[in-house]
């Protein structure tokens, strides 16, 4: 059993090493990483091959991490590298199930299910090798150029492999079902696009919903404040009260009018919150059943960039405005919905993000394995 498994993995490596795309991806990754190595961050400034970035009122080390997170992780590993990996590995199952090839495998003393899952894992070998080399390089570049030695970076390997496994499961299912590499690549990219769009829509709706909820909270506080003030300003009938404490009728009327306006806004806001909550709930529910590609990759952000550092990158935090907003009891401070949204996203548990995604992957793989097990070749 071990002999067979090692043989299949060894064969998968030979197969990958024989593909030009494997080496092209590897070289491109190295070039991208070396390009990133041009950045240098210290306490004073962020430079790129000696060119000093203008002062953006963001600490240079945080900006450096942000570049790393958004370019290296977000763009290269999640997008370019993943597409190249998909193109490289998409043919594994269509090739396996093609006539003349599958006969050689199935006629050996290895069960179909074991063959299927071993081949599946062997397919992930491509991404594992690529990401491992890339992350190792990134670890040294990050450490040498910014002085930030982060062993946690190596979490990127399981995270990216996990993220890719969602897509690869779809690719395998299509490959087994249609036996066509091109169809597998096209439909997997389409599926990925759908997942991404759904995730983006859910994020926008969450942002809008959070904004609406924050507005409602603020209105609640304001109405409450006005209610208390109005209650204190009501004329008392108690004998012996000094006239100076009696409210001015005009001020009281203004307060009441404002309170009514706020109450109307509050009423509208309740309705708005309910609407956004409902729409967000729908998208969130749908998303719950699908793999969370964006959020899985964002897990690495959680490890590399803290909440506070994320908040510092928000536009409002490092705006150029010199005048500080003045708050009083009638105008409570406005919370920033972007930060709240980011916090909500970060509050989503790893087990939910990865667990539900892996559950989806398990279902898709089971279906593909069932077809593979039942089919006459």
């Amino acid at each position, binding site marked *: 059993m071990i002999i067979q498994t090692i043989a299949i993995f060894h064969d998968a490596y030979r197969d990958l090493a*024989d593909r030009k795309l494997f080496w092209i991806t590897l070289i491109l990754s190295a070039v991208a990483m070396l390009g990133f190595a041009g950045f240098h961050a210290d306490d004073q400034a962020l430079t790129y091959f000696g060119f000093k970035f203008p002062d953006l009122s963001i600490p240079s080390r945080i900006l450096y991490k942000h570049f790393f997170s958004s370019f290296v992780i977000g763009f290269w590993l999640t997008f370019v590298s993943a597409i190249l990996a998909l193109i490289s590995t998409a043919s594994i199952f269509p090739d396996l199930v093609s006539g003349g090839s599958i006969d050689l495998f199935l*006629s*050996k*003393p290895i069960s179909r299910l074991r063959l299927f899952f071993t081949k599946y894992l062997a397919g992930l070998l491509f991404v594992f090798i690529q990401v491992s080399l890339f992350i190792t390089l990134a670890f040294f570049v990050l450490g040498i150029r910014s002085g930030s030695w982060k062993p946690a970076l190596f979490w990127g390997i399981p995270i990216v492999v996990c993220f890719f496994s969602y897509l690869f499961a779809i690719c395998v299912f299509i490959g087994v079902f249609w036996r066509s590499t091109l169809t597998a690549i096209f439909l997997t990219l389409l599926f990925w696009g759908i997942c991404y769009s759904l995730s983006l829509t859910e994020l926008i709706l969450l942002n809008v919903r959070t904004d609406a909820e924050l507005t409602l909270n603020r209105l609640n506080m304001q109405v409450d404040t006005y209610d208390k003030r109005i209650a204190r300003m009501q004329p008392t009938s108690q004998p012996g009260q000094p006239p100076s404490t009696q409210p001015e009728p005009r001020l009281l009327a203004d307060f009441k009018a404002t309170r009514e306006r706020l109450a109307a806004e509050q009423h509208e806001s309740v309705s708005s919150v309910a609407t956004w909550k409902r729409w967000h709930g729908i998208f969130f529910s749908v998303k719950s059943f699908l793999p969370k590609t964006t959020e899985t990759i964002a897990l690495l952000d959680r490890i590399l960039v803290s909440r506070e550092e994320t908040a510092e990158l928000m536009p409002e935090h490092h705006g150029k405005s010199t005048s500080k907003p003045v708050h009083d009891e009638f105008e409570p401070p406005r919370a920033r919905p972007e930060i709240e949204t980011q916090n909500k996203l970060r509050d989503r548990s790893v087990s939910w993000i990865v667990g539900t995604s892996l559950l989806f992957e398990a279902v898709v793989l089971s279906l593909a394995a069932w077809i593979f097990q039942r089919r006459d*070749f």
Partner: protein
Amino acid sequence: MGASSLAIDLRSVAKVYKGRIHALRGIDMKVNRGEIFGLLGPNGAGKSTLVKIMTTIVRPTHAEGTILDNPIGHKPTLGRVGYLPENHRFPRYLTGRQTIEFFAALSNVDRPTRKKRADELLDLVGMRESADRDLSTYSKGMAQRIGLAQAMANDPDLIILDEPTDGVDPVGRRDIRNVLLRLRDQGKTIFINSHLLSELEMISDRVAILVQGQVARQGTINELTITDQRYEIEVASHDDAAQLRQRIIQSLPAIFPAPHSTMDLVGTLAAGHKITLRTPVLSISTTDPAHIQELLDSLRRGGLVIRRIQQLRPSLEELFIGTVELPQQRPGFPVTVPPPLPSASIATPPSTYSGQNPVAPPSLK
């Protein structure tokens, strides 16, 4: 429990595709251990389906019986089976040696054993020189030799070969035949599915002919042709054909009593055996030499010279065509039959293969 004398014992093997296409209609087939068994049949007869069922590539609709004493579909048994599929596609990035070692590993052969075995097999199939070249640089014949080697990589008890000489040149075919005969001598059972009837005829101990998903005939070639075996007597003369024909008829008045004008004369011996004259050859439907002695005497008494006496049986090709054409003659049994091959009923010198076989020629085995 001791091993059965049967390597393959199939009973009622049936396969229906999509609920309506009956590829196999209940196959019963027995293959003895240590023999070379040939599977024949026209296109669409179900040969490949049967082979694929035996190797678990296709799941049977119904199957009973055993392969190497284990039920059909028993995966661990495949560790003792070697298989070379038709139109195989080996990974192009492997070398010949790596191919043998890889498929040996899939059969659970440990590393030292498969290294040693790969060397032996490369020698056996004559591929030692090209062993470390990529398969993508191989000719079809070379790939076929490597395919044969990988089928033997696990030192199997049963070797199933689907068109093993496909794309191989005549010298290569002879080499492969010799390898198979050596394997048989070592006690291996070899099951061959091939369209090359002449190849099968040379090495098969027994054959089965599949027609429309059923075993139409099964047995040794001798058993299957016993009823069609015959003696041929060729008469020599300086006369022209018409005169010779007349002299033969005159020499055998009891057999050909009346004057005839047709080319082929048909008569009957005293023992009831059919005799046909196609000048200058007399063909007698019998396997008993005693039945032709009186005939020979009569010819000699008529002043005729006997050039050749030969016991013949139909070739495998004739047997095959005769078998696949039979269903066509049955009402309600439509069958697509390949166009008949040129008749080979005219005897030729025994040293030359022409579609008709002298009985049990020692040079063929």
